[in-house]
């Protein structure tokens, strides 16, 4: 599946208070990471619904990265409790149906973790590159 010219399309849903700020910090610190990501800022990772993730996959995302505050750091106290519940479930459901659960990743990244942010995007992009283009997209195109 792997293709060296393959440029994955990655959607990032980042919470306003931690991961988005961590992404800003990565910028302020000039930490470089691949430009494949397109960021959608949300107030809390808890506002990302599985519907949003599935729509992204349907529309051609090769990977979806969700970033929230660490458990306990949520600006809304426990909004991210729901995030982890939903995304863990969705990952397992995707696995059952053969939809490549590794394309969905959840990471807690605080406003202070610029380096972690950059590294996560680097690692995730690399991982998706290795997995190759999304099966679902191939299926959609074939249809």
């Amino acid at each position, binding site marked *: 599946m792997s293709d060296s010219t393959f440029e994955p399309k990655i959607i990032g849903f980042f919470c306003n208070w931690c991961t988005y700020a961590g992404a800003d910090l990565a*910028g302020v610190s000039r930490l470089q990471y691949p*430009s494949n990501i397109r960021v959608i800022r949300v107030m809390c990772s*808890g506002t990302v619904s599985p519907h949003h993730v599935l729509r992204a996959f349907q529309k051609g*995302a090769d990977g979806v990265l969700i970033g929230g505050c660490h458990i306990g750091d949520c600006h809304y106290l426990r909004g991210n409790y729901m995030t982890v519940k*939903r995304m863990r479930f969705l990952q397992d459901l995707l696995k059952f149906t053969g939809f490549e659960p590794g394309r969905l990743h959840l990471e807690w990244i605080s406003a202070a973790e610029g380096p972690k942010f950059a590294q996560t995007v680097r690692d995730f992009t690399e991982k998706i590159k290795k997995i190759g283009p999304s099966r679902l997209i191939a299926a959609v195109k074939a249809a």
Partner: protein
Amino acid sequence: MKSQQQGTNPVGAVMVVGAGIAGVQAALDLADAGFYVYVVEAKPAIGGVMAQLDKTFPTNDCSMCILSPKLVECGRHLNIEILAPARVQGIIGEPGNFTVTVNQAARYIDMAKCIACGLCAEKCPKKVPDAFNQGLISRKAAYVLYPQAVPLKYAIDPVNCLYFKKGGKCKACEKFCPTGAVDFSQTDQPRDIQVGAVVLAPGFKPYDPTKYAAYHYASLPNVVTSMEFERILSASGPYQGHLVRPSDHKEPQKIAWLQCVGSRDLNHCDNSHCSAVCCMYAIKEAVIAKEHSKDGLEAAIFFMDMRTMGKDFEKYYWRARDEQGVRFIRTRIHSVDPVPGTDDLSIRYLDEDGTLRAETFDMLVLSVGLEVAPEVLETGRILGIDFNANKFAETSSFAPVAATRPGIFVCGAFQGPKDIPQSVMEASASASAAGDLLAAARFSLAKKKPEFAERDISQETPRIGVFVCHCGINIAGVIDVEAVRDYAGTLPFVEYVENNLFTCSQDTQEIIKERIKEHNLNRIVVASCTPKTHEPLFQETIKEAGLNKYLFELVNIRDQGSWVHMHEPERATRRAKDQVRMGVAKVGLQQPLREFTLPITKAGLVIGGGAAGMEAALGLADQGFKVHLVEKKDFLGGHALKLNHTWRGEQVKPYVDGLVQRVTKHPQIEVHLNSEVTDVQGFVGNFHSTLSTRGREVEVEHGAAIIATGAHSYKPNEYLYKENPRVLLALEMDQAIREKNPLVTTAKCAAFIQCVGSREPERPYCSRVCCTHSVESAIRLKELNPDMDVYVLYRDLRTYGPRENLYKEAREKGVIFIRFHADDRPQVAQTADGGLQVTVKDLILGLPITIRPDVLTLASAIIVKEQEKLAKMFKVPLNNEGFFLEAHMKLRPVDFATEGVFVAGLAHYPKPLDEAIAQAKAAAARAAVVLSQESIKAGGVVASIDPALCSGCQACVGVCPFGAIDYKETEKVCEVNQALCKGCGTCAANCPSECITLLGFSHKQIYTQIDQALAELKMAAEAAG
């Protein structure tokens, strides 16, 4: 600072002299709390030194980026009048009613006519060294101070202007000015201004190192000052942010920083003080320089003591040393020699082993100290205030922002060398002090904010304006901003596009407003930096243009664009286009959002009855607000009760006693002893808290809260503490001195061990107060018995700022300082007779030394315990070490991200009494800004349920972290209480029908962004394939 008895009502206006970050903060706090403010600035624009800095430590935030919104806010504030350039000429009157004479210098440019097009400067034939850029490049005699200047208006510098020098010739500027703004007939205008109080924040000037003849600063171009280096690093600096050295514009491979130039030095200058900020700025400059350099710049810092005593500073130091490869060499450089035939520089030094070494560098940076400029000293003399021996404004530890003349307050580096957060704290504290004095006159002169009529856009199709920012070269250096702009113009509903050098500058705000009117725009997208810092600014701008402020989207193409894809300009540009497309699509779906007002409970809750808590309580009470002061113990006073003296030598006990008296007698303060906060409900302006007093619960209503719960001293397991009675902690030593304990009075030898529990991997921070405290105690012991041998064993002696004088005094009095290494600590053993034996390796001699102290004092760390409960109740964060984490380390040092909650004192970070008092006053000022308002606004980004679609399943009710959703039995639908809703959207994602909308982040908007994010990429892939 009790309100003075006034014959007449005080004047509800304040003059702030100096408009750096401290002056700007003081002005904003005062103006927001209902006073009219005159800002008098000597330069033609506000911003001060912070505007010249590249980055700020310890977060590496871009200095201009975080400052700019404050400057703009100051510049556009209804109740702030900026007089610049202007100087104070005289003052008469008394606290509450001064008349200040200000000379407003002629600008020779009519501010009302100037459009800041820059033609005057372009046509001006006279080049002048540009002081803003430290003379590294030149400007013209007609000039603007810096590109983001507020006010953004040109000025003519009469000292250099040919018209003035050559008797009426030239006038090129006048000829070319398209608006006729040049006016050579202007003259200086003296003005008498009535104010109730004066806040002095004129700042510092960097030390001029010319006097260090052996450093050849004046003759060797590659020996630069740290301020010059800031400009060299800056994207808006002389080399556009390319790190090159002045002599040949070559990229340096090796740079050294020489510390303590013009600080801790009585040989070359009279500056006995430590400048407190140079260690950190040198580390920052070294780290940033290394980041700038493509091929591994070598950075070395030559220092005496590494003074990283602020919050998160120690970790910053460690990271620079251990991860970023900055070299630290403990030595003072004697002289600098040019390397013949090159522009390089050679230095010779004794390294820690005592070996003489020589090393060559491409560039040397002199970490110059802070001092008060002579013209500022003159202003101080005019105003009749006193200065201390280091020529900073004289204050007492107990009233750290009160100048020696009543009614005049001081803050920032004018009061003593200090960093930005400390300056900001003092600025807010000055505002609080002035607020005490003038409370009766609040809102007497301040104008009310006009309500901007909002255009009804409900019948309009989207007409979107897109503004793409160059951010100097921050964005334009990587991303093709013209291409992004042109692309934006092709998107649906986009009616207008434009790019700006700095979209955040004040003149661009005016441009945006004009464009909205000209093109009848109803939605605005700005592609620039991060919404975290700049969204409020632009929202305010469109509001003034009659648009609902939510009809706005900020697309981040800098922090998450040009800065992270620096080496991929094409891809960065593609990403920027995609993100702009997503933003345009999102804003197209945005509808105006409503805000509503809620009343404010005009009372404060202060938690903690130590010095900080009491000062905060008095700060609010003296301004006329009811205060509940909650203390866990059965007495007030906290840690301060255990201190003998401040570092200035003032006795602490009378001060604390007086404070307790004032607090307990104050009619506005209700003290709750033996009490704890057990529950907090509500939100800014409307908190309902439960206090438990020995099990009995009371409910209190308050509009704001200040957390000042203090800290504890670390109880060491090391160094025989609690095992041998001769081993004391610092505060126990105070007690022993106070009580004339024979352990101390009969001692022949005493020793202090520093950093016990601080600066360790498990506690990676400096406790800030211990060095000064030990030095002060050592001096007391010497005074008690000049023959006593007193040793201080330390790692870095951190008597920062004017405290350095104490260190000098201690050495003069014969206190012996022995440095030890963190890996080779002193060994403390008990001798057979129950005495102590301390062995430490002398790093200069390289030999172990044995001391037999009769009393050993451990400078143990300041730690916090169990702050989690309070943090959870108030929904505020703690840092890794358990200290409360403020909203922004630099510019919001007493605020939390949670509105209406503030922090002061040791609960925030270890600090000495004077700084804790300043922070407490600052917290009071910030809380007063909330409490002085008539009402607060709610609404905006909140959740909303469509009752027609709700099936009453209540999936939302249980997932709301704030209990803001109720199920209405009769209607069988759920409803959001928008006053309680904080807008997280967890409910919206949980609703199976998606009938909950988080306003501003609706499902439709999210889906649109997803589709748009993927649409173009797909097209690009298809085009390529």
